């Protein structure tokens, strides 16, 4: 069951505003109006201006399609696409829509093929998305068939621009989007190199879940270090993140659309929390200890001051480095009230057996059953339900007031403000 698992899955009419009625509140960057999460018109403009606009959208990891003929179904925004590797090793992304009658012809999530054939009328396409064959193109017994001027090259699949960077594949509808290195911006690129140094990855597996919240909330949640020490008592109890730990909330300095939430775990297995900090955290549980402490071990494998970094790469990618559990999360918007999250967990091809097991054990932190992941999912669901059904309509974004962008404090919403400053410029709000 999608979007809800709720009986009252309705959005109030006043929250489903038309674009003409969407005017940003006077509080400016200190507020977010509910309609950015609930309006269908806003959502449609986001698909057009953001996901189909001048952005690079994550679509796959090269390790998923290493060989010629390998393909994977994916999405750009909510548009279904196929990512394929041709015989010459080149990467291609095209819409999963037959040029003839629009069928979403590719139904397997991944595989290897010589060509794509639409099952409806068997139009066939090569691995680059070019139309190869049309059955009965010249008709039968000199009757019927395509007109003389029908040219296959005019009827290929809708192709997107593709780029790959250190094993990560992005696609774009835009011809004027900047090269990926420039797009990522220097600060993000530096941390991107930590997890993606260019060495071969080993895919460990997938999680997929539907999250009944607006897609932007997922970005905001990872630009909101305030919640991390409050919602996630698990982090606090086990010293993975405590208000006062060495940490950062970085916004890219070019647009403020990408971010990195980073923290450094102390050398102690469990946190030492001073009494003043403790009394601010209702969810804190003193004295909890693990029976199996292997789970919390941090094997220092990266040249980075941070044991944890969560990159938010606009508009649809989260890169997770939570100690030794690594993954990418692909955000697929699914209407204003829902997103599909596809998690690809990985290690490196040269990992030992024991390192792989360590990553799997630590994987219990993340994903739809992870000690952190499930709380985020629950909280974001609560927010979406709240903004859909309530009569009031403002979110208060005042922590660390006046600052827009990078902040050294966890008790800050400066990164969320930076994202919305950029968002408003693109969306015209």
């Amino acid at each position, binding site marked *: 069951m999608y979007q809800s*698992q709720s009986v009252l899955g309705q959005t109030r009419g006043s929250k489903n505003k038309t674009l003409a009625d969407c005017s940003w509140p006077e509080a400016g960057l200190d507020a977010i109006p509910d309609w950015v999460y609930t309006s269908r018109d806003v959502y449609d403009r986001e698909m057009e201006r953001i996901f189909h606009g001048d952005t690079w959208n994550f679509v796959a990891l090269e390790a998923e399609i290493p060989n010629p003929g390998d393909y994977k179904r994916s999405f750009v925004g909510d548009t279904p696409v196929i990512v394929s590797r041709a015989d010459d090793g080149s990467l291609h992304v095209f819409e999963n829509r037959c040029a003839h009658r629009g069928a979403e012809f590719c139904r397997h999530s991944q595989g290897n093929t010589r060509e794509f054939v639409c099952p409806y009328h068997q139009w066939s396409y090569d691995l680059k998305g070019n139309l190869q064959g049309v059955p009965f193109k010249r008709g039968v017994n000199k009757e019927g068939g395509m007109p003389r001027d029908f040219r296959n090259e005019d009827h290929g699949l809708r192709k997107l621009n593709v780029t790959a960077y250190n094993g990560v594949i992005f696609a774009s509808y835009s011809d004027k989007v900047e090269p990926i290195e420039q797009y990522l911006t220097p600060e993000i690129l530096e941390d991107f190199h930590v997890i993606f140094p260019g060495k071969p990855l080993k895919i460990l597996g997938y999680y997929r879940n539907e999250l009944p919240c607006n897609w932007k909330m997922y970005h905001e949640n990872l630009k909101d270090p305030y919640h991390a020490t409050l919602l996630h008592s698990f982090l606090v109890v086990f010293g993975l993140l405590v208000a006062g730990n060495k940490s950062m909330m970085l916004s890219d300095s070019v647009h403020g659309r990408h971010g990195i939430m980073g923290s450094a775990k102390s050398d102690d297995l469990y946190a030492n929390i001073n009494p003043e900090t403790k009394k601010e955290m209702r969810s804190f549980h003193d004295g909890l200890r693990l029976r*199996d402490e292997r789970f919390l071990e941090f094997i220092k494998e990266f040249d980075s001051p941070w044991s944890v970094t969560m990159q938010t790469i606009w508009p649809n990618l989260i890169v997770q480095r939570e100690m030794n559990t690594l993954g990418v999360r692909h955000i697929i918007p699914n209407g204003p009230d829902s997103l599909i999250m596809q998690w690809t967990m990985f290690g490196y091809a040269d990992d030992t057996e024991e390192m792989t097991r360590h990553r799997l054990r630590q994987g219990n932190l993340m994903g739809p059953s992870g000690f952190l992941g499930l709380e985020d999912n629950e909280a974001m*669901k609560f927010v979406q339900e709240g903004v859909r059904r309530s009569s009031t309509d403002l979110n208060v974004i005042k922590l660390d007031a006046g600052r827009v962008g990078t902040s050294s404090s966890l008790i800050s919403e400066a990164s969320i403000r930076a994202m919305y400053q950029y968002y408003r410029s693109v969306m015209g709000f």
Partner: protein
Amino acid sequence: MLNTMKTDYSYTPSRLDPMQSQLLRAEVEAFHAEYCAVLDSGNVETWPEFFTDDALYRITARENADLGLPVGLVYAEGRDMMHDRAVAIARTQMFAPRYTLHMVSNVRLIDDSDGVITAEANFLLLQTLVEGPSTVHLAGRYYDNFVRQEGKLLLQERQVIYDTTILANDLVYPV
């Protein structure tokens, strides 16, 4: 442990005579009933007691099982890890209140040799959220290895392989 983890989830014909294994079947079915009763009554901290000390427990999508990928939505090596998860859920985690109901059927005894009983069973996990309908939250199959300790069956390995490709929001409790 990873090198011994079950990796083949294809159809395996039973090697046991159905009539001669009736008692064992009754015992395995009783095990499922108790296991589910513990989970469905909210006693998650009792759940690890159904496993041996060194047991492996994994919940993963059929997609991963078919591709031979080792990741677990939940992955526990040993009863201590299961205990830690149970305590975390029961005492530290934030989630909306919910009821779960497991239905287990099509119990298949595959083999009984060298002290290990190999079995499979289909399950449906129904979830009911406050203010929500009851939904089929997860549909899948258990792939189990049981051993007998002090006369009781315990799980040495349980692979929970689910068909429900896209999970509704999250999965809080063990299955």
